[in-house]
């Protein structure tokens, strides 16, 4: 059981994590953070395999991964 945690405060909606996710479970959500960016959300936590590729490419260190 793995989990991806998006730290909304840091997310800038660049979309690099969405591109790299092998399970394609990340997408840009419809809620904004304090900076005004539509933050990334995980639409299906159950499918997360905890590979942490999203966190590796995230330029704002806005993703933490649990496994």
């Amino acid at each position, binding site marked *: 059981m793995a989990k991806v945690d998006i730290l909304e405060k840091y997310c800038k909606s*660049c979309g690099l994590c969405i591109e790299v996710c092998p399970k394609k479970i990340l997408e840009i959500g419809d809620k904004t953070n304090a900076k005004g960016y539509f933050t990334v959300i995980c639409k299906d936590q159950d499918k997360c395999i905890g590979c942490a590729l999203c966190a*590796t*490419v995230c*330029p*704002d260190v806005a993703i933490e*991964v*649990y496994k």
Partner: protein
Amino acid sequence: MEKVFARTKGLTDVSFSFCPGCTHGTIMRLIAEVLEELDIIEETIGISPVGCAGFCQDFFSCDFVGAPHGRAQAVGIGVKRALPDKNVFTYQGDGDIAAIGTQHAIHAAARGEKITSIMVNNAIYGMTGGQMAPTTLEGMKTSTSPYGRNVSVDGLPMDFPKLIANLEGAVYVASVSVDSPKNIAQAKKAIKKAFQVQQAGLGFALVSVLSTCPTNWGLSPVDSLKWLRENMMPVYEMGELKVTEEVKSL
């Protein structure tokens, strides 16, 4: 459930001030992780330059000194000579290290100064509006070369790490990229080595990291990485350009 990827202690809680998708953040994270892994956050003094990279003192947990444009090595050498036990690194963009500060970088390398330099190469001057830099590719459109870099007038791009690798005092020179998870892992290895070289007191270490500037390139963050892969990586020689025997045995 165990945390397999967490924000490193080497970074503060401050959110990066860079544009969305800018790989400055990735490179800073790699450096911060290396500082944490080597357990040298407290002993490290970073030198911040001028340019987008100049904001870095807000983001690292270690101490920082601000340097005038291009003079990060000169300041870093002063700090290192006064406090030889400290771990000193400079974090500079290509406009800072390869244009305005070329002389400092070359002579620091020639003298084998025991500091670590990280160069972030995005082929333009990012902060000031995307002007042409010495590292701009042939034919690349920038705000000061709207028809593309014309080599008959503007010359050819400078492969700065290759130049530094020719100098005797530079013991470790690598050119890496942060365009994919695999290359990010390699970049981290190179950065770690560059800090270990300094810990062992072997000489000057330089890691050049190819980076993106989605805002000034006029591309999306995802397309910027693709552009970097297809256009910049074939032009600049990649990998470990110089590893002396002493560094190999580290």
